[in-house]
């Protein structure tokens, strides 16, 4: 018998079958159609017995599936060697870029993780910063990462350094915008409230995290209580 294998999506609704009645052709064919589609969507290969694939396999990017966080997407670590520097005899009340060329960093973000999603999703970074306060008063050092495409900023991370002190530590910056996803450029910005500040950023690790894709439109399935059953 010549096989006729179709795959795709038809609504499989409750009213396609009735209690006490045998299953009808339209239900069976819809089931086969959708199950073949699920096979192709899951595996990226033609359904068993099919000559061609009609449903694109999911890839967790632009071909469907929840976006997967991909962890490290860009950054640098220079260790003992000089990193990104900024110093000024006065205060830098509004954070400014640490480089004269923009962007300072390029990252490749999952194209499906973009500002069209609810939230929108954002990246997180860990920075190793050396903050020197040569001024006569305590100073608040501020760090920001700016997305070049959208021109929007992350949340600001603030560290307070006492007068005459050099403080070195890892700081975290959250809320880094992803704009349209894919290739994105970023600038590092820093500033301080007192006089005589200097910063040296020697490491920056930018990552897609589980928080990046945390927003969900669905309820998590619980097999014990079957809570998703309408």
């Amino acid at each position, binding site marked *: 018998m010549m096989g006729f294998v179709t795959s795709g999506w038809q609504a499989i609704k409750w009213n396609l079958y009735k209690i006490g009645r045998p299953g009808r052709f339209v239900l069976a064919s819809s089931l086969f159609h959708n199950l073949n589609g699920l096979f192709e969507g899951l*595996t990226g290969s033609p359904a068993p017995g099919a000559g061609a694939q009609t449903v694109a396999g*999911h890839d967790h990017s632009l071909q469907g*599936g929840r976006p997967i966080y991909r*962890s490290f997407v860009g950054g640098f*670590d*220079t260790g003992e060697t000089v990193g990104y520097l900024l110093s000024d005899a006065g205060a830098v009340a509004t954070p400014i870029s640490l480089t004269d060329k923009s962007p300072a960093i390029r990252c490749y973000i999952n194209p499906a993780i973009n500002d069209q999603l609810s939230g929108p999703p954002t990246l997180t970074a860990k920075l190793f910063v050396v903050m020197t306060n040569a001024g006569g008063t305590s100073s608040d050092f501020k760090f920001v990462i700016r997305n070049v495409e959208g021109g929007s900023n992350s949340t600001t991370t603030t560290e307070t350094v006492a007068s005459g002190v050099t403080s070195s530590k890892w700081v975290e910056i959250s809320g880094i915008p992803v704009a349209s996803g894919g290739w994105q450029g970023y600038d590092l910005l820093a500033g301080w409230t007192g006089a005589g500040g200097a910063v040296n950023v020697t490491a920056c690790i930018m990552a897609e995290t589980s928080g990046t894709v945390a927003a969900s439109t669905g*309820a*998590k399935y619980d097999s014990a209580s079957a809570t998703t*059953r309408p």
Partner: protein
Amino acid sequence: MSVYRWFSELVNEMVEGNQWLDTEVLFRATSQANALYEFIFDKAAPGATSQAIQGHDHTSTQGGRTCARGTVYSGGAGQDQFFKWEPSAATTWYSADNANSSSKQRSGSLFWAYCSGTTTGASSPYTTPVAWLHVRVLKPVPGGAGNKTVSARINNVTLSKYSETKTFTVAAGGSDPVSESLDFVEVPIQPGWNEFDIEYQTDKDSPVVYTTHICLMEAADEDGCYESSTGVSPLGGV
């Protein structure tokens, strides 16, 4: 007109040869098909106005075999100094940057990486090691007589677990620094941010060791990066 989505039990005893399928069987089969659609594609099933099943994301929290993320950290400074190590005493562990200028020492928190796999087991060798670390070191000719044997290990500070220990020799002879690479295949990790340190110790004297490049990788399909598996591919192949 409802579109049901439900991961139900589909047992063979529900169907018999040459018999009509009853409503319960069809209900379970159609609910399962709709649930699978939403689980795979993370959007409402055909005909449904909302999504009831959360899409898988290949993590332990939302299902799907855990994916290796490849490189999750990399650092180096080319020909310039990255991390400098010089022990104060023999047979004592020190962080790889303990001889950096003081403001650039990281106090046992050398780098961070956001990981997705889960190492199982209490100590190296672990039951499921899931990350590798490549380290390149530069070894200047040391003072003192005889070769020195330096041990190296990775400390996952977040987990309070160590990798296996590797050793290398800092040769007393010659005139130029010699580089060497080390590959750790038992680096413990957990999902989320992990804090790491690299530690060295010498059997004698105080040789200087520079760490010039490091790269941490979730170990692709090798060495058990997947948290659990039957080893069967979705297509039924090898």
